[in-house]
């Protein structure tokens, strides 16, 4: 022991020959102490519950009494459960509605606002329009969903009342109550909720781009669309990654809008993993099963995020 500790202590005086010990201690305070409150809370609210949830997923438990260990039973049951597959298929629909469509529309709107309207009508016009697109993003999504669920109500909802007034009774469908229209209706609401986020991020990204690039392209006679493809898109690629990653994670986790719009119905046609897990936990008291769904969802989210980050790193390497 002594031979080990000796060389470690030896360099100390060489390090700071003239400096008093007090100053050394001040130069290197025990910073990890600042992490203690955060770490304690983190363990209590995230780590312990997460581990408990994984444990529940290997048990059968109605929420009272003791959980009974059943191994992988919940997972094998999940794989054979049609609702489970439907819910993840609907997640793909949510990715389309919350990532693909908003990103495409957002790119176009941001480019038009920044590079076209902003220059011709002044920055105020652009920023007012941007605020208008962004507004649904700052509202409680559950409340916005309740407003929409009334608008889409088959009897008293604004949409069907209007359609009937216009004599289009045949178009006055049961938007959220029919298996063929429920998912497209929910997707439309989600596009409305989501579209402002990419607009704001992309507009900020465009401010980063050197205006001389655009000027040079304009001098070369490149039209608006050519500049959009050749300059705008490649320049704001980092932000596009961030937007698609954060929105994909949000789409996989979506709960509030489903809860207030359809409760996953009709016949599970709008069920999503998070709502499916909630249903198992609370109304059905199948805690182990719900925990298994939540664990699978977590895995999917983490894998998707890792794939995204790898792709981004790869594309940066290609460029650099």
């Amino acid at each position, binding site marked *: 022991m002594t031979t080990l500790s000796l060389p470690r202590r030896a360099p100390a005086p060489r390090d700071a020959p003239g400096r008093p010990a007090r100053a050394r201690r001040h130069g290197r305070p025990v*910073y990890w102490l600042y992490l203690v409150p955060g770490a304690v809370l983190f363990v209590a609210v995230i780590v312990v519950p997460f581990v408990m949830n994984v444990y529940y997923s290997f048990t059968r438990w109605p929420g009272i009494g003791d959980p009974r260990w059943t191994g992988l039973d919940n997972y094998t049951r999940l794989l054979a459960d049609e609702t489970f597959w439907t819910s993840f298929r609907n997640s793909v629909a949510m990715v389309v509605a919350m990532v693909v469509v908003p990103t495409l529309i957002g790119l176009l709107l941001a480019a038009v606002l920044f590079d076209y309207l902003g220059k011709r009508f002044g920055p105020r016009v652009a920023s007012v329009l941007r605020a208008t697109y962004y507004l649904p993003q700052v509202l*409680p999504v559950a409340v*916005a969903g309740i407003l929409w669920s009334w608008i889409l109500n088959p009897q008293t909802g*604004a949409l069907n009342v209007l359609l009937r007034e216009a004599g289009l009774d045949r178009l006055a469908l049961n938007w959220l109550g029919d298996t063929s229209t429920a998912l497209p209706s929910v997707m439309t609401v989600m596009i409305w909720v989501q579209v*402002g986020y990419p607009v*704001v991020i992309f507009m900020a990204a465009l401010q980063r781009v050197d205006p001389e690039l655009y000027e040079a392209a304009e001098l070369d006679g490149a039209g608006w669309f050519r500049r959009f493809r050749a300059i705008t898109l490649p320049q704001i690629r980092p932000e596009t990654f961030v937007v698609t990653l954060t929105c994909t994670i949000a789409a996989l986790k979506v*709960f509030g809008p489903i809860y207030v719009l359809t409760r996953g119905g009709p016949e599970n046609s709008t069920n999503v993993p998070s709502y499916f897990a909630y249903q198992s936990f*609370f109304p059905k008291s199948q805690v182990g099963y719900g925990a298994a769904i*939540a664990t699978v969802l977590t895995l999917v989210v983490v894998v998707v995020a890792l794939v995204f980050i790898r792709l981004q790193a790869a594309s940066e390497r290609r460029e650099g």
Partner: protein
Amino acid sequence: MTTEPVVLAPPAPSRGTARTPVVQRTRDRNHRGAVRWVVLAAAVVVAVAMMVPFAIMLLNAFKAPGEYSAEGPLSLPSSLYTDGLVAFWQRVDYPEKLLNSTLIAGSVAVLATLVSLLNAYALGIGRIRGRMWVVALFLLANMLPQEALVYPLYFLAKETGLYNTQLSVIIIFTVIQSAFGTYLLASVLSTFPPSVLEAAALDGASSWQVLWRVVFPIARPTLSVLLIFFFIWTWNEFFIPLVMLIDNSTQTIPVALASLQGDRLMDVPTINAGALVSLLPAVVFFLVFQRTLTRGITAGAVK
């Protein structure tokens, strides 16, 4: 934090090449004004489409049910019908819900910002060993679906007597929000000028004094962005408050409104007035803090 929300700031005069108004003009000559108006109209149409649900809500929040069935959703109300608003206000005891939401979101905003600052001080400035792993852990926690935590949290809250109290939601969201805040702030603080810290250390300042007298004042703009974001995010949260707060007296605005859904007393003006007063605080907040918000979103994206 590099992108300020100054849309189309005039180019710095020092920039070498001359701005090219000439090019702009020749291009416009080709389009002769017509195209730009078409593009503006298209952008305005999208904006109007975004606002339609709110307009319909406003039109029908103060319209009598009979008038709604006779005149439809687009007519202006002939008189100000306030029974819907009164019914909603009394049913959910709106002032109490407003207070609950404010209490929860406000406490979380302050506490989560504080925890983020302490964590980030250790990670970004203290550069403690293994900090990359700690930051990665916070980032991972930020991605976790709340469903993977909710049942144990519900169980633990019941065990500790915190179930159905605002405190349970405050504690949970302080941790969830500070996971993001730590990640963001740690990378901001890691760029903190070391010379400033060294100077303070030479003056004999303790690390606690450095935190509050040097780091805190300089990091204040970022902290205020975090504070506002945490407030809005927590205000808008739905899933965990729905599970944790089952009593009308502890609920937040979105949960209280959702609990009335499908109620047969919720007629058209009541739903719309309810949605209106439930959205209003967030809209006001948005209008007041719009600049900070746009700056914050972009800061989050660039980091």
